[in-house]
């Protein structure tokens, strides 16, 4: 019971923190929020084979029951992928910060490179 409670609240807290941070408008909190979300899903994937304690991952005649080994394999794949993705988005936000001079995630609808062409587009409205 306590184990289930710990896992459920842990996943819930991580997800809530991740969602909150993703909704902020600076790149750094968004990246941290994405990491929180991926931690939440990793923990969640562990529980999908049900929580079994002190059991071998292969069928063993001397033990009663086994634990499901597949979720571990899936979590490993998920960790590798999200780790790579996090690295990519960190580099990307750094590049964006260096090129635009701020770390705001909002996309200006009329960036300055379009402003000079304004009179040529009046007709296209």
């Amino acid at each position, binding site marked *: 019971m306590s184990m289930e409670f710990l896992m459920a609240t842990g996943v819930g807290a991580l997800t809530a923190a991740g969602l909150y941070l*993703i909704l902020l408008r600076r*790149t750094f909190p*968004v990246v941290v929020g*994405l990491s929180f*979300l*991926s931690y*939440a*899903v990793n923990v*969640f*994937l562990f*529980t*999908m*084979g*049900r929580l079994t304690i002190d059991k071998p991952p292969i069928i063993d005649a001397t033990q009663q029951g086994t634990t*499901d080994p*597949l*979720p571990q394999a*899936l979590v490993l*794949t*998920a960790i590798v*992928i*999200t780790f*790579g*993705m996090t690295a*990519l*988005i960190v580099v*990307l*936000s750094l*590049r*964006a910060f260096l*090129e*635009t001079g701020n770390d705001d*995630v909002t*996309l200006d609808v009329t*960036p300055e*490179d*379009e402003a*000079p*062409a304004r*009179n*040529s*587009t*009046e*007709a*296209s*409205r």
Partner: protein
Amino acid sequence: MTTPWIIAPVAIPAMTAAFLVLALRHHRTGQRFVSIAATIAQLAVAIGLYVAASDGELRTYLLGNWPAPFGIVLVLDRLAATMLLLTGLLAFGIVLAALGEWDKRGRHFHALFQFQLLGVNGAFLTGDLFNLFVFFEVLLIASYGLMLHGGGPRRLVAGFHYIGINLIGSTVFLFAAGLIYAATGTLNMADLAAKVPLVTPANQPLLAAGALLLLTVFATKSAMVPLHWWLPTAYGSTSPPVAAMFAIMTKVGAYSIIRVYTLIFGAEAGPLADIAAPWILPAGIITLVFGTIGVLAARRIVDLVCYALIASMGTVLMAIGLTGTTALAAAMYYALQSTIASAALFLLAGLLAPEKDSRIAFAWLPRYGTLFAGFYFLLAIATVGLPPLAGFIGKLLILDAGRAASAMAFVWSAILITGLLLTVGFVRTGMSIFWTPAPPSGELPQRAVPAGPVAVIAGMIIVIAALSLFAGAVMDDLTAMAEQLGAPQRYIAAVLRPHVTLNLTGE
């Protein structure tokens, strides 16, 4: 039946991409030759597999010869073969269109392009839900690189949005896969299809939550309203050949919806039968309406194309939501032609509004105005759905399929009214570009129009015309495809059968 050729659409781009990165990193000409050769090889394999699949037999390929529910299995049916052929055709056109102009902006365009094809082809072939996630990641990782190809601050900020939304999508995919595994104990699609009807009532809410979470992921990929906001930003900020290639990615979402919600949660899924259809149909209608509003409001030609793509996805999703053989066949027919038309429109938008000044520039217009206007006219007809091109036939087929549905009033009025509004939007933009061109502001670069994209757009229009001309034959094939999808027990039997004859020949 097992054929080793099924692995080829995955293996060819994987090896090519690795070879391009490792051996030809600094040889642009070599990269081009290898990339074009690999793309032609994939197209040839796709044609071969399409011909092979058209006998109605399901073919499988066991990776590492592990039997089906335990190992990963690739499955070739008519749907997968059709999508592979579409990918092959599109990739062949786009690799030619990217030559010269766009593949020079960075070192790894061709390698990323091949990785993208690896992910797309794999997603169409795989018969395993978690493997589908992995192929989604492969195609997304490649698409991040392609999306940022060429650089620039606007692209970087838009790229951050695109990567962020897709990372959230991947996380939700994992949650959904976890829920489905928790309820059924398997992630093999055929095994899932066999086990979903037998799930105990206690586990059914869990499974339903997983199924619908999965729908949100696929809805994000296929730009279903209200999960479509990322698309105009991302596609509108990237380079034209990449945006054209991305036209297939929304179809990967639509494909996944068709696959999962006909095979696993289809009509025979017991208490969870057709769990997604009540959501897909209204969402498709709203997507069509939103896309049309976007077309009317678009101020840049590339935005017009993005929202036209969203509108066409709405039409496809609506037809998928109608369920049934005729509706699915119509959805696929419309999806085929709209993918090609959107890709051609993205390329044309790139010619009409070259980089730097992302709004409409008129440097090439005086000399090439007639040609571009002709392209625009034909592609607008195809996208809007006016006769005689394939868009009209597709919409007609969807209207016909919707006749029996209880939601007929909504489906018909949505398609017919948005058809008119889309026409207005395209006509207005066309008039402002070609009939009342504003004088170019400042000096514009005097360059010859690149021959590649022009030839590719012409080729794509010919393909659309061929789709219209041979609509009967194509629809026969697609109806057979939809009938195959309507009989999931054959898919299950084809995938799970081999472990009866689990041959020890591998030793």
